[in-house]
């Protein structure tokens, strides 16, 4: 909802009737400019009191309810002017408009009766009136509907980020807490829907898996063994779950140790040496990674070469030679037999020419092939006659494998050439691998050397604590990496046990498994994994969007300020969550950035959250009391400009524009109404709080 106006009657320092304490607002940045003690915070209190029935008690730094604060919330001036026996009220009225253009009036009223000079008979609590404007008049809304309407003015879950005091900004988000960003995303986006769907599919997967186990048990031909295997399966599933969780913890600890080491490096004072160390180390670590990758590839291709480069044929040369000799002998004998037989071979196949044609050739005494005459008794006639009597050729070989042997021999010749090169090919590959290994050893040694040099640098830095902690964190990282390796091995073994148990159970099943039970289990298991992966995908896209948006806002807020360095980076840690960091151009964490910088980063993040997907900034007013109170003077203009452009409506109290020349800047912003408020003592005695009221003047920009 958009806030149209607020007016106070005898509320805290706002003495007098609503008409004299009335502020109207429009879209854009509405500014209420005032000096300290001018009534800015009390105005913020008025907004809060209408919605929550609570007042900020400065000495306790906390919100207290009207029931406790009682007549203290009534203006001192009103109380002093009230006669004994009279009743006075403290009131705040707010008029708001919803997206569907409905106008609501929210009134909170507290009543007290003066029964003595300093004695009051107060109502136990305030009263709330809500009216809706229709048919040209205000119509009272029944009490049960109040909460819903108040929640539409500012929903509870976004309120801490939309309504805040300047001094609270720092506590809105803890940049060192790895879960902070996730919590904010969960709170302010609709990602909870995906958590709900994960819960549904997990329940479904668990139920259908149990159904399938029961069903298989029923079909088992050895119930006892089936039960044993199910027990093993269940135990292994539990262990797998535990190992996976433990590995996550290890990953988290490894990452934390790495981040700590990074931070320690940043603490070293010798900036030049530190930068040199960082770049040299990074180059060497990158080199190590590349060498490791090349080595892995080489190991992979080494195995493939067994077949690809025919290394498998190494040492078979003598067999090749033996085969060659035997084949030559065989071939010679084979050819001899074939040649012997060729003398009796009848060249034409048995059915060529067809017998009917041969018969006609004999009958007509003529050769149809060459067209010559073949009278009876002639050689030609005799030859034609022999065609009828011809017999099939004699099969001289029972099993003729000559073509196979020939193929083997040809392969022999082909592979024989590569066999000669196998030794040199293997040694060539081995020398490349050894070369890579040597380079890796050298690079690792160089890393150790520069680490040692860095230790010396740390010692020279006289930061013994840093040195000690640096070593400690490195040791921790190594220890967690070893633990992780052990857990991964346990996980591998247990996963194998799980698979064996599943196979064992399936083998015991007799008969056909019910298709619906089987497919239900499969579908729900798939739904569960897709739901989880979709949530992660959505979460990561929100994070990416937030990172871009917060940097965009950060740049907007700081573009005229050259003293501000760094950018916001959401660093993914291995448990899947993200830590917001302020990093330099090389992505190294900036340690000890100044407070103003941190506040700006936090405000950028918060504004990114409010202006991203859900577009809270379009539908709700940002209300803040002195948001820049913890910022350095020159950081504030960027903030106001950004707020004015990115929020449909904002209502901000400030002392930043008290001077006339600073007010001129406001003409560059998307402004709403601007008011100047100041303490006013009608009788002229500024020590007398019983004379205090607030003078509100609209300022034209």
């Amino acid at each position, binding site marked *: 909802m958009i806030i149209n106006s607020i007016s106070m009657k005898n509320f805290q320092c706002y003495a007098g009737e609503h008409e004299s304490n009335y502020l109207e607002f429009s879209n854009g940045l509405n500014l209420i400019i005032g000096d300290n003690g001018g009534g800015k915070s009390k105005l913020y209190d008025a907004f809060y009191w209408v919605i929550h029935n609570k007042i900020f008690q400065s000495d306790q730094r906390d919100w207290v309810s009207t029931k406790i604060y009682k007549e203290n919330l009534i203006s001192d001036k009103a109380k002093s002017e009230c006669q004994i026996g009279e009743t006075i009220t403290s009131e705040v009225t707010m008029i708001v408009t919803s997206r569907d253009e409905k106008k609501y009036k929210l009134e909170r009223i507290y009543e007290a009766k003066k029964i003595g000079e300093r004695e009051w008979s107060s109502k136990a609590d305030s009263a709330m009136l809500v009216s809706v404007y229709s048919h040209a008049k205000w119509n009272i809304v029944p009490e049960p509907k109040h909460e819903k309407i108040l929640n539409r003015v500012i929903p509870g879950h976004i309120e801490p980020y939309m309504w805040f005091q300047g001094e609270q900004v720092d506590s809105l988000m803890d940049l060192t807490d790895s879960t902070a960003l996730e919590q904010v995303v969960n709170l302010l986006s*609709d990602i*909870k*829907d*995906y958590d*709900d*769907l994960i*819960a*549904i*599919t997990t*329940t*479904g997967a668990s*139920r259908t898996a149990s159904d399938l186990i029961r069903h298989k048990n029923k079909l088992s031909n050895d119930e006892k063994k089936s039960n044993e295997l199910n027990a093993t399966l269940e135990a292994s599933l539990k262990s797998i779950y535990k190992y996976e969780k433990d590995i996550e913890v290890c990953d988290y600890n490894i990452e934390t140790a790495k981040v700590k080491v990074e931070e320690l490096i940043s603490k070293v004072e010798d900036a030049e040496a530190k930068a040199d160390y960082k770049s040299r180390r990074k180059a060497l670590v990158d080199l190590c990674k590349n060498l490791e990758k090349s080595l892995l590839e080489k190991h992979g291709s080494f195995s493939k070469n067994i077949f690809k480069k025919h290394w498998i044929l190494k040492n078979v040369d003598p067999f090749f030679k033996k085969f060659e000799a035997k084949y030559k002998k065989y071939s010679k004998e084979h050819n001899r037999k074939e040649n012997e037989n060729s003398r009796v071979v009848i060249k034409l196949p048995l059915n060529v020419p067809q017998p009917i044609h041969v018969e006609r050739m004999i009958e007509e005494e003529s050769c149809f092939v060459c067209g010559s005459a073949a009278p009876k008794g002639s050689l030609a006639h005799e030859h034609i006659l022999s065609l009828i009597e011809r017999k099939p050729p004699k099969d001289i070989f029972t099993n003729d494998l000559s073509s196979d042997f020939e193929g083997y021999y040809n392969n022999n010749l082909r592979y024989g050439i590569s066999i000669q090169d196998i030794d040199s090919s293997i040694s060539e590959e081995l020398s490349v691998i050894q070369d890579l290994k040597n380079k890796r050893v050298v690079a690792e040694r160089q890393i150790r050397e520069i680490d040692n040099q860095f230790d010396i640098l740390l010692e020279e830095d006289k930061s013994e604590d840093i040195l000690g902690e640096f070593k400690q964190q490195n040791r921790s990282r190594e220890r967690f990496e070893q633990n992780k390796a052990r857990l991964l091995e346990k996980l591998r073994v247990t996963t194998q046990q799980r698979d064996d148990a599943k196979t064992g159970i399936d083998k015991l099943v007799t008969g056909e498994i019910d*298709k*619906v039970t089987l*497919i*239900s289990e499969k*579908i*729900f298991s*798939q*739904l569960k*994994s*897709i*739901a989880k*992966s*979709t949530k992660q*995908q*959505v979460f990561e896209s929100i994070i990416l969007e937030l990172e871009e948006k917060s940097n965009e806002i950060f740049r907007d807020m700081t573009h005229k300020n050259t003293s501000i360095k760094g950018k916001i980076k959401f660093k993914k840690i291995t448990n899947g969550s993200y830590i917001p960091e302020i990093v330099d151009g090389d992505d190294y964490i900036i340690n000890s950035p100044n407070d103003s910088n941190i506040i700006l980063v936090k405000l950028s993040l918060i504004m990114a959250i409010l202006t991203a997907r859900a577009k809270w900034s379009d539908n709700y007013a940002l209300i803040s009391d002195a948001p820049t109170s913890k910022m350095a003077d020159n950081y504030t203009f960027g903030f106001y400009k950004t707020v004015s452009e990115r929020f449909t409506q904002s209502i901000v109290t400030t002392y930043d524009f008290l001077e006339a020349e600073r007010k001129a800047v406001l003409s560059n912003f998307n402004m709403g109404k601007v008011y100047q408020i100041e303490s006013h003592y009608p009788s002229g005695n500024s020590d007398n709080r019983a004379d205090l009221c607030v003078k509100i003047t609209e300022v034209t920009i």
Partner: protein
Amino acid sequence: MARDRNEILQEFLKNEKLLELLEVGALDAVDNSFKDKSKYLLVEAIKKMILSYSTEDSTSQTLKKINALISTEVRSS
């Protein structure tokens, strides 16, 4: 249910894991609509789940609806 059900369906359908399980590079237009029927039972189960969740059914009701879908589809195949 804060988010639009079509938006949730789109997020599910562009998931790599789903495409991998279905062994496809991308899904067809019919898969992307609650009105049309997909040839993949898994996609239909996802639609049923989102529809039931968006109408604020309880977990048991949602699971029953998915189970009924699977049962009908398997028996008719």
